[in-house]
């Protein structure tokens, strides 16, 4: 494998890791506050559709992004209503949200665009175009570092850079601010938060709202940056891979970045099985490469690679005694 192929694979790793990372951080905020969320997939899907649909209709990708975030947050609100206000089962709520998004997106797409459940292709300002970082072109021919800068670091859409910035941002918010302290506390022992005079419901809704925003960006990225338009079921299980990455990262922001890059790399390799074959000298079925994130997560969950302990109050609705 030559240097350029490596750079290309890493470049597509970054592209593929971006939606995983955004969704993973979304799940991190929700689960750190004690709300399990297996509805990441559905929220991303809804956001992917609405951002593509609005971007196409208005011609502005930024309005599309807003619409995607709005759709995702609406589903977050539903999840909050079910699991916080009415203390319902968070897992069941998440399952329902995934189906709701899966059905509604196609239904609306069909009645809106009549193209078999997809949006028309996005062009021009209706898409997030790659950004060329300063001097990228000029430095392109510098040996070794040039290609890394030009091919790998430069030339992504703005959402990729936003996703990367979300990592230190999340870390700071969680560990260096009052809000973060309270958010982590409410996922560990909501009674402590309640008796300290802070609203458990308010905090958890805030967490779920952040989750909605991040899932919204992730979905918008899929349909307006990674691809040019919405197609049916385009999330393709990314919400679940993000969930897997979250467990892999043991609910910590920096670890989430590495987990998502790893899973992104696996996805990138699955697209280039020729490269894998030439490096390993054996043929690896791409089905195996595709399911590696899931297999790795099972191995992590089984505790063979350290124990993943979720937030203590996770999955439980908060009920005062009695």
């Amino acid at each position, binding site marked *: 494998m030559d240097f350029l192929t490596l750079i290309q694979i890493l470049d597509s790793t970054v592209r593929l890791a971006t939606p995983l990372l955004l969704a993973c951080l979304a799940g991190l905020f929700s689960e750190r506050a004690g709300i399990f969320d297996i509805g990441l997939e559905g929220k991303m899907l809804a956001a992917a559709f609405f951002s593509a649909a609005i971007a196409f209709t208005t011609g502005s990708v930024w309005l599309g992004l807003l619409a995607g975030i709005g759709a995702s947050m609406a589903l977050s609100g539903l999840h909050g209503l*079910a699991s916080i206000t009415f203390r*319902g089962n968070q897992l*069941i709520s998440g*399952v329902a949200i995934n189906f*709701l998004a*899966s059905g509604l997106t196609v239904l609306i797409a069909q009645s809106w665009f009549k193209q078999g*459940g997809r949006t028309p292709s996005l062009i021009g300002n209706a898409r997030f175009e790659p950004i060329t970082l300063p001097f990228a072109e000029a430095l392109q021919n510098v040996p070794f570092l040039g290609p890394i800068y030009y091919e790998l670091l430069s030339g992504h859409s703005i959402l990729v850079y936003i996703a990367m910035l979300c990592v230190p941002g999340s870390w700071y918010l969680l560990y260096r601010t009052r809000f973060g302290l309270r958010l982590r506390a409410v996922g560990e022992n909501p009674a402590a938060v309640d008796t300290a005079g802070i609203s458990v419901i308010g905090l958890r809704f805030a967490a779920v709202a952040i989750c909605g925003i991040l899932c919204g960006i992730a979905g918008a990225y899929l349909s307006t940056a990674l691809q040019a338009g919405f197609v049916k079921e385009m999330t393709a299980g990314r919400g679940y891979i993000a969930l897997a990455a979250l467990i892999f990262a043991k609910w910590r922001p920096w670890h989430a970045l590495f987990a998502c890059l790893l899973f992104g790399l696996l996805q990138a390799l699955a697209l280039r099985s020729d490269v894998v074959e030439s490096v390993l000298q054996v043929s690896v079925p791409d089905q195996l490469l595709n399911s590696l994130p899931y297999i790795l997560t*099972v191995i992590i969950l089984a505790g063979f690679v350290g124990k993943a302990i979720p937030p203590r109050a996770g999955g439980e609705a908060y009920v005062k005694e009695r």
Partner: protein
Amino acid sequence: MDVMPRWADVILVPIISLLIAFAISALVILAIGQDPVAAVKIMITGALGSTYGWGYTLYYATNFIFTGLAVSIAFHAKLFNIGGEGQATLGGLGVALVCLSVDWPHWALALPAALVGGAVFGAAWAAIPAYLQAKRGSHIVITTIMFNFIGLALLNYVLTNILRPQGQMDPASARFPEGANLPTLHDILAPIGISFSKAAPANITFIIAVLACVLVWLFIWRTRVGYELRAFGHSQPGAVYAGISPVKITMIAMLISGGLAGLMATNNVMGEAERLVLNSVEGAGFIGIAVALMGRSHPFGVFLAAILFGFLYQGGAELALWASIPRELIVVIQALVILFTGALDNMVRMPIQKLFLALRRSKAEG
């Protein structure tokens, strides 16, 4: 004292939840510019207006009875098995291997063997998540989701590289031998003088599904292991106190659950497609969740809910055909049913409880 009488808990609350789910579905149909009343008419004629329609309704219902029972059994042990999809996928592989391995002389021999094959493969696919939950505390919801994806990848691999006959393009197995083809309801009912559509896929496995309901009911409420399973589901420390092994019960519950999901394949793979294709389960594993929630995890409730979803599926197909409403409408209805009978249960339940409390108070005072 209980706040509500039992009938309100078992019948009133689910029915109200269902009505809300349907009302919102009607609004969705309105919102996409269609007429809900006309849609319901198409669905009813299409699904129940002919033996052809009934044949499809019961065919789908058969799938959902198996997956609904699978989710229910696990629910009784307080385990959430989201892996019905993967277990049914693997069940299909088991059924296909059984059907393809022998040139079966008669279906009466092939069916029992296929039942064993489907159940064993389904149970095996549930066994690893079950073992990890029981022994290592790995959250079964996450592991079963992961196993759905792994199962699909595995089947994809087996179909493309092993079971695909030479020269065939699509990833699917060869056709099953003639002797492994199951009698349809037409074949069963014709000798007793009832004419039933020949084209509909409903087959003898519907009767097996009904039998499974009865057996699951007996198991849960009449056997010692069923008693232990329910006790474990209500209180794990209590189970340990009573000498019930959590590891054993988790394994038993999940193996039965996976086995039931795997049994579904005798209907869709052996009874209908008569060969193994990639996406043969078509989401039935997930619909099992809605069916179990609506049926309150009781086999009789599961039976009714499965018939209802069978109706929705066949009706939905008719809608797609005649009213240009995409089939995905059914996915939306399914989501709403899960939402209202499952996650938003308290939203429906709490006002009704208040009502009964007020009624009792006024009775006590009056």
